[in-house]
């Protein structure tokens, strides 16, 4: 290998590798290390023990938060799927007006350009006691005084997170549906299948990679969210990421926070690899 060539190889490969090592592997390594340390107020001291992990498993408080986070993330994913799939299906198969199609798609994607914080905050103003929903219900006479039922609970969390993350469900499903050749539906119809049968036997199976990708994205993004719980969640809507934040912040228990982070990382990686497998299987067409 000649000199300049090897230099460019070093640069092309070296910079991303350096980036990954310094900004990914190193921080993860530090977190893993911390997770085995023990708390020694006001700081922590190095150790190698599994006490932090044991606390997570035995203390019902953490188990409960973890289960709640899983539940809310799953609800957000399912709700996003139920809303996004029909919408994407309509866009791909039923919307024949090109400019309407573009506008409808942009309407879903455009919120991504708005600050995340703003999008979460919007729901505070909609669901709050002084909010739009309460004003509307009072003006129509359905309720006589403002209700505080809408905000600071898991319902508010699911609604807000679904609103924020639904573009990540629409995009992959839209792409998957658009890749299905139109004549496959026609062939199915030609072979005697009614439209709903065609949907179940052709369209749905061929769009599973999109569903898997959308589910993974919305689930993992909800799973790691800590701003929505802070704004609309209240004590009932506390998620694991907010607990981690408080362990590193006010609770000053980095080892426990690190252990929680690692547990979360493992869960997310498990979901990503599962979804990869589903997508690969759908793409190669194997059973």
């Amino acid at each position, binding site marked *: 290998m000649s000199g300049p060539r090897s230099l460019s190889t070093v640069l092309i490969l070296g910079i991303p590798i350096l980036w990954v090592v310094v900004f990914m592997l190193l921080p993860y390594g530090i977190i893993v290390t911390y997770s085995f340390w023990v708390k020694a107020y006001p700081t922590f001291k190095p150790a190698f023990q599994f006490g932090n992990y044991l606390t997570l498993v035995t203390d019902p408080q953490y188990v409960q938060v973890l289960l709640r986070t899983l539940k809310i993330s799953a609800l957000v994913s399912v709700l996003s799927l139920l809303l996004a799939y029909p919408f994407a299906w309509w866009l791909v198969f039923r919307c024949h007006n090109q400019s309407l199609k573009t506008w409808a798609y942009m309407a879903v994607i455009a919120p991504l350009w708005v600050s995340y914080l703003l999008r979460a905050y919007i729901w505070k103003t909609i669901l709050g006691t002084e909010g739009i929903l309460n004003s509307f219900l009072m003006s129509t006479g359905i309720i006589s005084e403002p209700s505080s039922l809408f905000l600071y609970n898991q319902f508010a969390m699911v609604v807000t997170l679904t609103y924020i993350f639904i573009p990540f469900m629409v995009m992959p499903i839209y792409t998957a549906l658009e890749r299905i050749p139109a*004549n496959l539906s*026609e062939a*199915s*119809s*030609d*072979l*005697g299948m009614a439209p709903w049968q065609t949907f179940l*036997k052709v369209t749905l199976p*061929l769009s599973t990679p999109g569903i898997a990708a959308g589910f993974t994205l919305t689930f993992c993004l909800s799973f790691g969210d800590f701003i929505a719980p802070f704004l609309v969640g209240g004590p009932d809507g506390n998620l694991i990421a907010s607990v981690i934040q408080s362990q590193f912040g006010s609770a000053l228990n980095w080892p426990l926070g690190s252990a929680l982070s690692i547990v979360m990382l493992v869960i997310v990686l498990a979901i990503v690899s599962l979804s990869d497998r589903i997508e690969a299987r759908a793409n190669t067409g194997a059973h």
Partner: protein
Amino acid sequence: MAAIIELQGISKHYSRTIIGVDNVSLSVEDGEFVTLLGPSGCGKSTLLRMIGGFEAPTHGKIRLAGQDVTHVPPYRRDVNMVFQDYALFPHMTVGENIAYGLKMLGKGRDEARRMAAEALEMVGLADKIDQRPMQLSGGQRQRVALARAIVRRPKVLLLDEPLSALDARLRDQMRIEMKHLHEKVGITFIMVTHDQEEALTMSDRVVVMEKGRVAQDGRPQDLYDHPASPYVANFIGTTNFLAARRSGAGVATAAGPLQVEEAVDMPDGAEVTVGFRPEKTRILAPGETAANALPARIAEVIYYGLGLRITVELADGAQVHVDTLLPDTLARSDVPRPGTPVTIAVEPHNIFVFPGKVVV
């Protein structure tokens, strides 16, 4: 024989000005192999899709075996289609693809598989039943698509440019195979193609379409020997056209008078166009005489293996193609040279006469 498909005044208007199919009436008999032939945009595919039920006509009626099916959806029509790029389901095996349409006919799992195996046997792919469409070659996919459509024994099989995605050699082979398949299964075939050779070799009857209308409908040899219009004459095979005027018993072209046999019901002096096939045009041997001899000069000679296509220039400058088979006594050096004066001749019965002046 009874008509299996009857189209009565079928039109498809996409808008007030964009008309896909314009008042087509057509009757197809049970067991016939009919081809809709025309260039892209002539409405042939739209017509086929309307027979299949994928598009609804704006006007007119479609009858299938005597029943009005104009507004019956595809999944309740007893016709099946072979799609241009086959439309095989990528997430199913070949066997599952073929058995797909059998469940709705009330066939059990085992029977469906047995029927699928039989259909695959018929197209020579018995060993591919458990493979995926992706693992097959283009020609094999085409056969699977055929098997999937005929396994349901529809009243009519629709074929949308079925051979266009195959390479030339395979296409020739599949032409013959499909013709044999048609004879074997006895189902009515309606095919769409833009390839005149395909239409001529495979079908019992060819419907030539032009701008959404039927230009001519007949047996392949009738279309070839008696084209109804310059459009048909030009679309099926090659035709030399010359502008002429009606004169006496024949016509007068700028290059000389021609005798014709076709009855010409036009007054003397009326503008007409004559057409004749390159392969029906001869270059006379020196000293030979014949009817309709015209002096010419060789302009270009193209060698294509089987024979020569010689382009000659008539006295008035009009160019005419002459196709000759290469006699085996003719050495390469005897191939006519550009610039040589020759005499060409066409038998009177080989001349088509069309009214009016034609721009082709």
